[in-house]
């Protein structure tokens, strides 16, 4: 009898893995000048300390998050004895790690209840991609908040597929407040949630007016209103608490940012030239066009009704690939959605294709990282052609994989089966 027969066993291993990493992390922090804890976590905890003193979290440079995060981490600012303080310091990491495990649990629930996966198969996929993935466990136990996004996206999908429109809207509003990019899922979900989905008989030969009226369903209205209300209320509260710095650091920063240091984005070299005032065409001002056209129009329109999870994965993939800034933390964003897509994917059905895609992706990363190493550590001027070509190659690989995801999404049978418990 295998370990995947039992959900408690899989979750026990996942939790133990995180616990071991947490303990190891605090040991390394206490005994080595090279810290296990992520720099970002120091930013969060510094911000939490400011909040605990009644100050604004934005007093900490590079705190670019919702104050919610600093509030959640308030226990890390508690003054206490040495033993307790290492525990309170880890509070946020424990929270992120728990969020990880909860995200995994939600995905397993969805796979078994809505996708009719046998429990063993669901556990196997979720363990491989998420729960037992050392990268995921490492990131959350080092104290990166990206793990929270995982649970929010998993929760959003869970609430949607189990037809809890108000809850889905609430999670969506919260997720967008947290990290902006999840707004793209709103489009998919709205398009997916048509009247048939709520049990209406398929309608034929409708005139334009009826079509429009039929588009407005109670679920869609509930979802939209609840998402907007959550988003607006949260922002209103934060704005009244912290004013313009909140808006500047959480949202506007992404529009006005000037720190175009080298990253995986195909735009990186161009943006360096633009920022230094060397260019003439200003193509980059149109960069949002291909990104948004694909992510909020074309992909949801074609794919959402065929396979919501795959559509969301394709959106995330396209959003990251076409973004003006791309760092490795962004790759986590689509990891949580892979267990829905991979089992029926061409990448698994044709191992050669799957392995080729994985190999090319890794080669793309490796080539870029090699050039990045030359620049960052050896001080060689590898911006052109090195980093420039490496980022374009990586972009091409991502586009090719995105094409496969789109084809797979198009061939999907409607596998999201309504939860019988509804």
């Amino acid at each position, binding site marked *: 009898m295998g370990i995947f027969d039992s959900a408690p066993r899989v979750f026990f291993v996942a939790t133990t893995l995180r616990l071991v990493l947490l303990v190891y992390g605090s040991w390394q922090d206490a005994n080595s000048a090279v810290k296990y804890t992520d720099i970002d976590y120091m930013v969060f905890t510094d911000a939490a300390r400011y909040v605990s003193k009644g100050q604004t979290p934005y007093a900490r440079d590079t705190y670019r998050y919702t104050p919610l995060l600093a509030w959640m981490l308030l226990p890390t600012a508690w003054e206490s004895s040495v033993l307790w303080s290492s525990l309170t310091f880890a509070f946020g990491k424990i929270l992120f790690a728990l969020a990880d495990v909860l995200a995994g649990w939600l995905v397993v629930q969805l796979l078994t209840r809505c996708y009719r996966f046998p429990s063993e198969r669901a556990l196997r996929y979720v363990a491989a991609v998420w729960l037992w993935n050392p990268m995921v466990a490492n990131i959350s136990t080092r104290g990166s908040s990206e793990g929270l996004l995982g649970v929010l996206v998993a929760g959003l999908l869970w609430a949607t597929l189990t037809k809890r429109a108000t809850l889905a809207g609430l999670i969506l509003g919260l997720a967008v407040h947290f990290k902006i990019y999840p707004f793209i899922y709103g489009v998919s979900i709205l398009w997916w949630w048509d009247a048939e989905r709520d049990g209406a008989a398929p309608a034929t030969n409708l005139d334009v007016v009826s079509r429009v009226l039929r588009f407005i369903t109670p679920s869609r209205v509930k979802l939209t209103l609840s998402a907007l209300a959550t988003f607006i209320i949260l922002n209103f509260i934060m704005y009244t608490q912290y004013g313009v710095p909140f808006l500047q650091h959480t949202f506007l920063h992404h529009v006005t940012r000037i720190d175009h240091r080298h990253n995986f984005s195909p735009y990186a070299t161009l943006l360096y030239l633009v920022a230094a005032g060397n260019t*003439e065409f200003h193509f980059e001002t149109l960069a949002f066009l*291909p990104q948004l056209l694909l992510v909020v129009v074309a992909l949801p329109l074609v794919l959402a009704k*065929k396979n919501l999870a795959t559509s969301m994965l394709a959106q995330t993939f396209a959003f990251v690939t076409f973004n003006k800034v791309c760092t490795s933390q962004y790759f986590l964003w689509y990891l949580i959605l892979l267990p829905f897509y991979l089992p029926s994917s061409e990448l698994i059905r044709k191992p050669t294709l799957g392995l080729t895609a994985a190999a090319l992706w890794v080669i793309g990363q490796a080539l870029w990282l090699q050039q990045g190493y030359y620049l960052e550590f050896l*001080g060689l001027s590898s*911006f*052109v052609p090195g980093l420039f070509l490496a980022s374009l190659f990586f972009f*091409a690989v991502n*586009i090719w994989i995105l*094409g496969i995801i789109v084809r797979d999404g*198009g061939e999907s049978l409607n596998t999201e089966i309504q939860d019988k418990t509804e």
Partner: protein
Amino acid sequence: MKRRITYIQRSDAGFDPEQAVVTPKSLTIRNLVAAREDRLTFELNDLSSELRDLLHKSKDVHVRWATEESFDAVPPFASRVSPGLHVLHTPLDADQSSETFCSWLGAAFGRNENEEALDCSQHENTFIESPHRTTDSHAATSLQYHTQLPSLKPFISNIKRAICGPHTTESAQCIAVADSLSTADVVDVDYDGTSNTLVLSGFWANGPTGGWSEEIHKPTQKSDKVEFGLLGAEPGIGADEVKVGGLLAVVGEDKKLKPTMFSFPSRHHVLPQSASYAISFSEPTGLHPTMSITIPRSSLNRPSAPDDTTCSLHTYLTLPSSIFGDQYQLGTSDSLFLQSHNLAGLRAHSGETDLEAPDWAVKGWGSNWLFELATPTDDDLASQSSNWTSTIPLHLRYLHPSDTGYRPVHVPWPVVFWACSSEYEEESIGINPFDRTHLGYDSLFSPRTFFYQLHPQSEHLVEKLDAPVLNLGDGQGFFQTHNIELGTSIVISLGFFWVLWQLARVAWSSGLGANNTAQQVEVHDKKD
């Protein structure tokens, strides 16, 4: 105008009375081997109206310039600053922009031979708030500026124009003094609004080959005065004191040189020549250069400071905006991190510390950092013979693209010193005719602090790093700005249309709705 010329001879240097001859109208020096300070005090009326107006808007102005070449500090002129031009300015009105002052500064110190204008003229906010002790919050906000400045040539011609005035015997002397600054190791300019005087002084650690020779004339105007001193210095009786002895004269008044001997408490002291340090950057420097401060263990003994003081080793960094420290990384209290770098902690910093901004988005000239360095334990000192090295991790900003793919970043050597502070905070150090303050770091310590400077161990006191930047290839080659723009847009457009094409194929074959529902039922049935 008042002038004071001081020669400081080493104890081993010989002196023959023939070398300094006094006449009723002048004093003549011949082949004198000594260090020299020349100090001119101007009443505001002596200055050009332009300069006067500018000074009237200031509470005080302190300019400190030091050469990039190494020189010996000679007591009582023992203090040091990093090479380059340092300016400390307190405007009369705190809200007043530093623009006028800044553009004057740009004009006064002007372009050097390398045609690099002082950055000052480009930005209104290039001055940064000078660091101050956290304990004295009442200190007036003074603004601070630094730039690399290898040569004072433009400054010298500006002095001639703004101060020396029209051609007279007087101005001939003034011009000679100004010209002599071209070989000075240290130049200070001090304006203090309360005394309403402007003091210009130069210091030469060594004379020209064959020693100093000059004829100092009696001033033509009654109000003017020229004082002359030929002195030698040695440690005084008190540990904080310096004792000087030698000959003094007021030129044109005294018939002969008068012997003298006096001692005074000194803020700055010179350590033995063996107490030295060297600055280097470990190769390859990459985008994250690490500055190493290497000190022979033998020179790490506590200086012979007064017993009521506690001493600790410090370094004060003056970094241009292109290189910076991470205040959160360096300001940590984590003992493991500090130990691994042989640091005791970051004690003060000011200026541009944005962690992400490229250099062109940074307005201020750069930043200052005061670190306390860790020192080895006594056992360790005795048993080990290797050098003691403290390291400071720093980061480079993105710089403008260039035709070679690299741009130089010039980092002046920091000063390294023991600071010995007394617990009696309020007590100040007594009167010293050769005192020097406003060095940037001195105000970060309690008033009764003695500084013991380590000797920089190099000919040239500026490190040059090659910062990698985007290579524009001098207009040659394929990867030109134009082609990068075009290439990026073509690749992204192709990617976009490829995905769109894949989507179109899906939509063409199976529409926008859900796929075959019969299959769905099938799945249902299977399960059931």
